């Protein structure tokens, strides 16, 4: 037995999710990728499409991870992984780096999230009001400051609870900030109507997607 007919669809893999985001980033955009799954998006943007990646610790023009024998110990990204710098890359201090973010100079930020609400609210930094040691990092700056905020995340939690909700129950990172959500099941725009489904994983029906989503889904007008 290979499961019921209801489960007869194929969710996108992590690699496919990152690829789908990468395919939607045009040449010339300045982009910040959050730590976690969003970091993998950079691997799927071909080098001849000039997208300039920003890392909050003062790196603009970040390139791929170095080969093991070519690590530069003074060059790390926000996730504190070793990186490379592309020709044309530049360094700046933290206040200038966050001026790029807060001053509205980034075309796009891609973040992971715990929850996204259908008014664009995002919760991605703490899972309760009494988190033992909450760690916000640059998430609130990115969510409030980038021209566009896209979220890349699983459609539900590990136990199947919806992450696309009518109201975030976790502490907010920013209100009404998310423009688009890429999940392992669908790509969904956040509009004045709420969530509008742009595309779905192969074999998945709209009804089935709705069943995994707390907030109401809409079809494009």
């Amino acid at each position: 037995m290979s499961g019921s007919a209801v489960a007869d669809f194929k969710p996108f893999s992590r690699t496919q999710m990152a690829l789908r985001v990468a395919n939607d980033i045009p040449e010339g955009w300045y982009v910040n990728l959050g730590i976690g799954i969003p970091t993998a998006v950079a691997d799927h943007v071909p080098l001849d499409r000039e997208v300039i990646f920003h890392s909050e610790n003062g790196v603009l023009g970040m390139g791929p991870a170095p080969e093991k024998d070519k690590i530069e110990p003074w060059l790390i990204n926000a996730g504190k992984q070793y990186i490379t710098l592309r020709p044309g890359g530049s360094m700046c201090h933290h206040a200038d780096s966050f001026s790029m973010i807060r001053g509205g100079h980034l075309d796009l930020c891609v973040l992971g999230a715990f929850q996204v609400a259908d008014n664009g609210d995002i919760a991605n930094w703490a899972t309760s009001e009494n988190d033992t040691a909450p760690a916000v990092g640059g998430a609130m700056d990115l969510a409030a400051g980038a021209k566009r905020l896209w979220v890349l995340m699983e459609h539900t939690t590990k136990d199947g609870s919806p992450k696309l909700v009518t109201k975030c129950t976790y502490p907010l990172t920013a209100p009404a900030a998310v423009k688009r959500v890429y999940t392992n099941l669908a790509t969904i725009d956040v509009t004045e109507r709420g969530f509008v489904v742009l595309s779905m994983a192969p074999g998945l029906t709209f009804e089935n997607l709705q069943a995994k989503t707390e907030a109401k889904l809409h079809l494009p007008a």
Partner: protein
Amino acid sequence: MINKIVQSMADAMADIKDGSTVLLAGFGAVGQPNVLIDGLIEQGAKDLTVACNNAGTGHIGLARLMELGRVRKIVCSFPRSSDPVVFETLYRAGKIELEIVPQGTLAERMRAAGAGVPAFFTATGVGTKMAVGKEHREIEGRTYILENALYGDLGLVEAWEADRWGNLTYKLAGRNFNPIVAMASKLTVVQTQHVRELGDIDPDHIVTPGIFVDRVLHVPYGDPSGF
């Protein structure tokens, strides 16, 4: 003759008082003035408020300073690290106060302090629990919150090159918070990998002009490792 280069850690750490606010540069281990932190541990000042992006790793550096009970309060954006055991233990036991600040707000609060701007409005944190209790203002249709400048009594900085006037350069991602910590602090102490003769650093390459620097200690420790 101006000479900000000091010959010993004792000179670098002279007259640091209990109760000081200490701004600590670095992002992970890169650009973090670890040797000066060890000097501060040795120097003995206590009841400190420390502002730093992270809250220490393992049992060394900032983590060691906290473990010794010398830090009353930490101001940071991301207290988690690869090994935040000291911070988490103290925090759960109620032995350290935490002020969590969005990273860009932390950086801007330091720059504001250095620039003589006592407070500024930002959209970061609006509509979140960071905004609770803060002054809100609507400016041209968008809501902002007021954030205060963050001044340091002491700033600890790591540079790549320095000269006797205190002019500094940095290496790659080692720049991070260093220039703004230097600007924001009443007493800025620098550890530098290289000491250059006055005039040997290209003026176009100096990132932190010496006006922001008080003491420089030559610490050629090599490359950062571990985060």
